[in-house]
């Protein structure tokens, strides 16, 4: 039974409402850090919000009447995926909900005659093919440790996940790169402007549909960064002070985010074959090595 008098019941609800804002701020920080890495000043951290508000106020140009519906579907499923995380629900369901959200975007992009949009959608499918198995394996390796697919079970593991699943944590790097549409794996449509596909999968969106898609993108980034923060779900108790897990988790997740930005700024774009091979080989090897290592430790200890 849900206890409605307890204030902590409402924390997940607040998190779900704030998710796009957290993601938007992360994108703003991303643009600022990227600018500093290129020795520029860069836009203010609130820049993504200005962009989204401006897009919302533009004259609507709808390429196909299904596109707004699918854009709202993309938004709904992204928020639902974040809600699954915030309420500590099933990780498998979370991965599949995220997949359906992506599919909404892909179908919307296929729903126009523009070749740019079509090729972008095909490449987005390849991106999904690359990262989804890795993300599933991350969930499975957490299952090996906690004995459950529930996000809330991560808190029952006696040690932080990062100390026993460090390689699995590293396997999240390519997943985050593909989802944030960062180099070297931004084949389907880069956040940066000029490329051979114009804007790739986003080409046919404009006005409020593009603003919605931006919101979904932020929610997805917030979801993955939030998931990464669960790799340190234990309070650190020093002699006198206790550092709450959310602070340590945020630092851990931001470290992952920063690694992605460094990779984005130091690598050119690679083709989809390299993306698929790299993500699968690196992701699978890291996760399998981690699980085998854990099993070997169990055998030695027994």
């Amino acid at each position, binding site marked *: 039974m849900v206890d409605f008098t307890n204030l902590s019941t409402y924390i997940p609800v607040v998190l779900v409402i704030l998710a796009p804002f957290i993601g938007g701020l992360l994108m703003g920080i991303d643009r600022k850090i990227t600018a500093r890495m*290129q*020795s520029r000043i860069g836009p203010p951290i609130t820049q993504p919000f200005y962009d989204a*508000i401006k897009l919302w106020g*533009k004259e*609507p140009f709808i390429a196909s009447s299904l596109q707004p519906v699918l854009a709202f579907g993309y938004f709904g499923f992204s928020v639902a995926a974040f809600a699954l995380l915030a309420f500590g629900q099933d990780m498998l369901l979370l991965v599949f909900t995220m997949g359906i959200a992506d599919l909404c975007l892909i179908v919307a992009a296929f729903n126009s005659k523009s070749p740019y949009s079509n090729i972008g959608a095909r490449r987005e499918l390849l991106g999904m093919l690359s990262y989804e198995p890795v993300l599933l394996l991350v969930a499975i390796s957490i299952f090996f440790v906690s004995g459950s697919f529930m996000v809330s079970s991560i808190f029952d593991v006696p040690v932080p996940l990062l100390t026993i699943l460090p390689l699995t944590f590293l396997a999240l790097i390519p997943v985050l790169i593909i989802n944030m549409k960062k180099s070297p794996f931004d084949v389907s449509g880069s956040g940066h*402007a*000029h490329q051979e596909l114009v*804007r790739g999968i986003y*080409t046919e969106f404009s006005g409020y549909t593009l603003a919605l898609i931006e919101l979904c993108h932020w929610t997805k980034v917030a979801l993955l960064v939030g998931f990464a923060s669960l790799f340190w779900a234990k309070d650190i108790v020093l002699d006198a002070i206790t550092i709450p897990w959310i602070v340590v988790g945020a630092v851990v997740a931001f470290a992952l985010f920063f690694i992605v930005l460094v990779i984005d700024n130091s690598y050119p774009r690679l083709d989809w074959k390299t993306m698929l091979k790299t993500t699968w080989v690196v992701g699978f090897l890291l996760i399998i090595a981690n699980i085998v290592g854990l099993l070997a430790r169990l055998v030695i200890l027994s």
Partner: protein
Amino acid sequence: MKTMTKARLKSPWVLHFDCGSCNGCDIEILAALTPKFDVERFGIINIGDPKQADVLVLTGPANKRNQHVLKNLYDQMPQPKVVIAVGECACSGAIFHNCPNTLGGVDKVIPVDVYVPGCAARPESIVDGVILALQKLQKVSEGEKVD
């Protein structure tokens, strides 16, 4: 200032189209996007998609070949939008004046809001031109009549 107007002024996405310039002005426009001038600190992004652009930056004289492309790009941009003609050729046709294959300035094809003179226009004057265009965009956004 209303939130929407502020957001519009803070995030002008630029579409750059070359109507047949000598590339002198194009190089200067690209220079404005480099770290030295860093227009992204004003939220300006060079975007390739007319459907997502707010500002159309044009270089070179309009000619009979590409006037249809130019008109099409302009029509594909959603309101509110502004057009900047960069360089002498885009403003008036300059040395191509009265050539049989050119039409003159780009304003022969589409309405132009801001003219940036110079051969080639300097990055500073291009950034100035964008700021002038933004003042016009602010007036349009606040509902004033401008011609």
